[in-house]
C-alpha cells in the first residue's frame, strides 16, 4: 500500500531530543532541593533524639552539640543574626521552618516546588503531585503545631515524601538528558551533605588522636551514622562495635553504600561526563579534571592517609570546595541565565483574556 498523500498536516518534531537550558537548570535544582530537605530532616531527627537520650546534658554541652552542627552546615553566621542561643528548639526552628534561612527545609521544599512548577510540563504528574503535596503539607503547618504533636512524625513525613519523589522519578521519568541533570544534582547534594554530617564530629578525630577509641562517645558516632542512614549498613559491613575512624572510613570510602562520598563521587563523575560530553581519558574541562582527581583520591587513599596527612576536617572542606566548583561549572556551561528582578512583574501584567 502506498503511503498516504501529503495532504495531512506535517508531523510534530518529537520533543525528546531537545532539552531547554532553563529546563535543565530547574531539573538540577529541583533534585538538589529535595535531597537537601531530606538530609536536613534526617539530621535534625537524629540529633533531637540524641538530645532526648542525654537529658542530663548541661546547657553548655547542648549548645556545643548544636553549635557543631551549625558550624558544619556553614550557616552559623546567619543563625547568630536571628537567634540568641543554640538549643534544640532554636536550631530546629532555623533548619526546618525559618524562611529567612535559604537552606531550611521550608525554603528547600518551596524552591523545589517553584522549580517543579517551571518545568511542570516536563515532569510526570506523579512527580509533581508528590512535590506539591509536600509543599501543601508544610504550608499548612506552623512550627508550634509540629513541636506540640512531636517532631519525629513531621520529619518522617518529609523523608518519606522525598523518598517517594526519588522513587517516582526513577519509575516515571525517561532516561534522557533530563535524567542526567536530576541525578547529577541529587548526588552532588548528597555528597556535600555526607561530608557535612561527618564534619560535625571532626574534632574527635584530630591527626594525633591515634588512641581515640576510648574517648569516643559511641552514641554520638551512632548518631552520625544514622544521620546518613548508614548505621545498619555499617553494622553489616564491620559487625563489631562502632569505632570513630571506621565510621569515617565507611562514610568516606565505601564503594557500595549509596551515601558515602566515594559512591556519590563515582556517580557525579559519570553524570558529569555525560552532561559535558567529556568522555575522553583526559578530561577537557576543569570540572572534569577536578572530579577525576577527587574520585582518584577516594579510590586510592586510606583512612590513615586522611587522618594523618590531610586531617579529616581539611579533607572534607577541600571535598566540599571541589563539589561546589563542579556544580558551578556545569551551571555556567550548560545553563547560564541572567537574573531579572522585574521579570516577575511583567509576567503578571500579561492579559489572559
Amino acid at each position: 500500500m502506498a503511503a498516504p498523500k501529503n495532504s495531512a498536516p506535517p508531523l510534530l518534531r518529537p520533543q525528546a531530543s531537545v532539552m531547554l537550558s532553563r529546563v535543565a537548570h530547574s531539573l538540577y535544582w529541583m533534585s538538589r532541593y529535595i535531597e537537601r530537605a531530606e538530609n536536613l530532616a534526617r539530621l535534625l531527627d537524629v540529633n533531637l533524639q540524641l538530645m532526648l537520650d542525654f537529658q542530663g546534658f548541661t546547657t553548655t554541652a547542648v549548645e556545643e552539640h548544636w553549635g557543631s552542627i551549625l558550624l558544619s552546615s556553614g550557616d552559623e553566621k546567619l543563625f547568630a543574626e536571628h537567634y540568641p542561643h543554640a538549643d534544640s528548639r532554636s536550631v530546629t526552628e532555623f533548619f526546618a521552618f525559618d524562611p529567612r534561612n535559604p537552606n531550611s527545609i521550608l525554603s528547600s521544599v518551596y524552591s523545589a516546588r517553584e522549580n517543579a512548577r517551571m518545568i511542570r510540563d516536563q515532569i510526570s504528574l506523579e512527580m509533581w503531585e508528590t512535590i506539591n503535596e509536600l509543599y501543601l503539607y508544610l504550608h499548612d503547618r506552623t512550627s508550634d503545631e509540629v513541636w506540640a504533636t512531636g517532631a519525629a512524625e513531621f520529619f518522617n513525613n518529609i523523608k518519606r515524601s522525598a523518598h517517594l519523589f526519588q522513587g517516582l522519578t526513577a519509575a516515571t521519568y525517561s532516561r534522557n538528558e533530563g535524567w542526567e541533570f536530576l541525578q547529577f544534582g541529587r548526588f552532588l547534594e548528597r555528597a556535600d551533605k555526607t561530608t557535612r554530617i561527618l564534619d560535625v564530629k571532626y574534632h574527635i578525630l584530630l591527626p594525633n588522636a591515634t588512641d581515640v577509641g576510648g574517648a569516643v562517645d559511641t552514641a554520638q558516632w551512632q548518631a552520625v551514622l544514622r544521620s546518613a542512614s548508614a548505621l545498619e549498613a555499617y553494622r553489616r559491613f564491620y559487625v563489631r562495635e562502632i569505632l570513630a575512624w571506621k565510621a569515617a572510613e565507611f562514610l568516606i570510602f565505601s564503594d557500595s553504600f549509596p551515601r558515602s562520598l566515594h559512591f556519590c563521587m563515582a556517580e557525579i563523575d559519570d553524570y558529569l561526563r555525560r552532561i559535558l560530553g567529556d568522555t575522553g581519558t583526559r578530561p577537557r574541562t576543569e570540572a572534569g579534571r577536578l572530579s577525576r582527581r577527587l574520585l582518584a583520591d577516594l579510590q586510592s587513599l586510606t583512612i590513615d592517609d586522611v587522618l594523618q596527612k590531610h586531617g579529616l576536617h581539611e579533607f572534607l572542606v577541600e571535598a566540599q570546595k571541589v563539589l561546589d566548583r563542579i556544580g558551578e561549572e556545569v551551571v555556567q556551561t550548560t545553563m547560564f541565565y541572567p537574573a531579572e528582578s522585574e521579570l516577575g512583574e511583567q509576567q503578571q501584567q500579561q492579559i489572559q483574556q
Partner: protein
Amino acid sequence: MSILNSHYDSGNFFDEMFIDGTAVRPHYRRLGERLGTLPLKDFDHRRAAVDLAFLRRGVTFTVYHDNAGTERIFPFDLIPRIIPNTEWQRIEAGLVQRITALNLFLDDVYHGQKCLKDKIIPPALVLGAKHFRREFMNFTVPRGIYVHICGTDLIRDHAGNYLVLEDNLRCPSGASYMIENRSAMRRAFPNLFHSYGVRPVESYGDDLVKALLHLAPADRDKPSVVLLTPGVFNSAYFEHCFLARQMGIPIVEGRDLVVRDARVYMRTTAGLVPVDVIYRRIDDDFLDPTVFRKDSMLGVPGLVSAYRAGNVALANSIGTGVADDKVIYAYVPQLIKYYLDQDPILPNVNTYLASEPLDRKFILENIEKLVVKSANEAGGYGMLIGPASTKEECEKFRDQVAANPRNFIAQDPIMLSRSPTWCDGALEGRHIDLRPYILYGDKITVTPGGLTRVALRKGSLVVNSSQGGGSKDTWVLQGDE
C-alpha cells in the same frame, strides 16, 4: 436527605434546569433523578474529593493584588451545565459564522480597508484602536488566518436567547479548565456519563496542535511548535503547562529563544534548535523589544523580523486585538452582513458607543441603569454595573466616559440565565455565562463544550475568576435529552 429536597427559587430569571422552580427541563431530567437519590453526605464527600484533587494536581490560578498566597484553586461546582444537541448546533453555526467574518475583517483592515471605504465602520474607530498594528499593514499572515484560537463569551437573556457578550481574539484562556473540569466530573459521577451521551472535549489538545502545525512554513519536514509563556508568575501559567503537555510541545519563555538571521531558535543544552510555530501567550506589546515595548523582558529581540520573513508563524497573529475591541464589537453584526451577506445567527447585546454623540448623551444620562465597559480591558476589570453600583462609582465612570469617549461602551444590563449551584448547603440559582473554544486551522473546529463560568456571589453578574467566579462542567449532549 438528597440535595434536591431544598426549596429552589428560579426568581425572575431564565433557569437552565427548572421551569418555574419546579418542573425539570427534559435535558436535565436524568441529572435531576440522580441528584434526587444522592444522599447529601455523598454529595459533600464527592465535592471534597474533587476540591482536593484540584489542589493536589495544582489546578490553580493566580490572583493579582492579593498578597495572601497567590495561588488558588478555581472554585468548581458539581452541578453541570447541559446543552441539548439542537441548541448546540445553532451555537456552533453562529460561532463559525462569526470567526469567519472576523478573520475577513482583519484581513481587510490590514490590506485594502474596503470596509472603511464602504463606510461600514467609521475609520477613526479602527485606525485609532489601541490594538491596531499599523506596522503590519499589507503583511500577509501564514495561510491567511489571523485568529487561530478564539474564546467567545456567550450569555443567555431572560428568555433564554444566546447572545455574544465579547470576542476574545488575543490570548483567550480557560480551555485547560474545560478539560480538567470534565475529568473531575467523570471521577465524581462516572455513571451519569454512561447514561447521558455527553460529547467529549478531550480532542481540544489534538485539534489545537493540528491548527498550529497547519501554520508551519511549507518547507519544514517536522516542524517544531512551542508555547511561549510569560512565565511562572502569570495567572494562567497552569494552563500554559497543561496545554503544552496535552500537545507534547515544549513550553518556553522569551529568554529561552533567540533570533539569528531572521530565524527563531531555542537555547538547549545541545545548542540552538530551530522553532517554526509559536503559540504565544504574551501580548503583542511584549513580543519583541526591538519593535514594540523596549522594556519588555518577556519577548524575543528580532522575533518580528523572523515573523515578517515568513520563517516563523505566530498564533494568534499580531494585531488581532483590533477586532475584539469592545467598540468594534458593536459593528460585528454589520461586518457579518457585509463580508458574508448573512444575518448573524448569534446576536450581540444591545450596545451604545460613547464615541457617538447621541449614544454618549444617553449613556451619561442613564449610567446608573447600564453596564459600562472600558474598550480594552479583560478579566472583569474596568467595568461598571450601574444598577449594582454606588452613586460615587457611577459618577467616577461618568467623568471617565466624558473625558475619553472612544474608550467606553455601554450595554443594557442582561439578566444572565441562572443555573442551580451548590451554595453553603443548598441549591441556589447563580448567574452563568459560556465560553466555547473555536480553533481555526485547515478547517474551523468548535469543541463541543466549553467553560461555563458561574458568579458564586449571590446576585452577582460578574463571572470572572479574578472576581469571585467559579466554573462548571459543560455537557453538550449527543441528542436532545
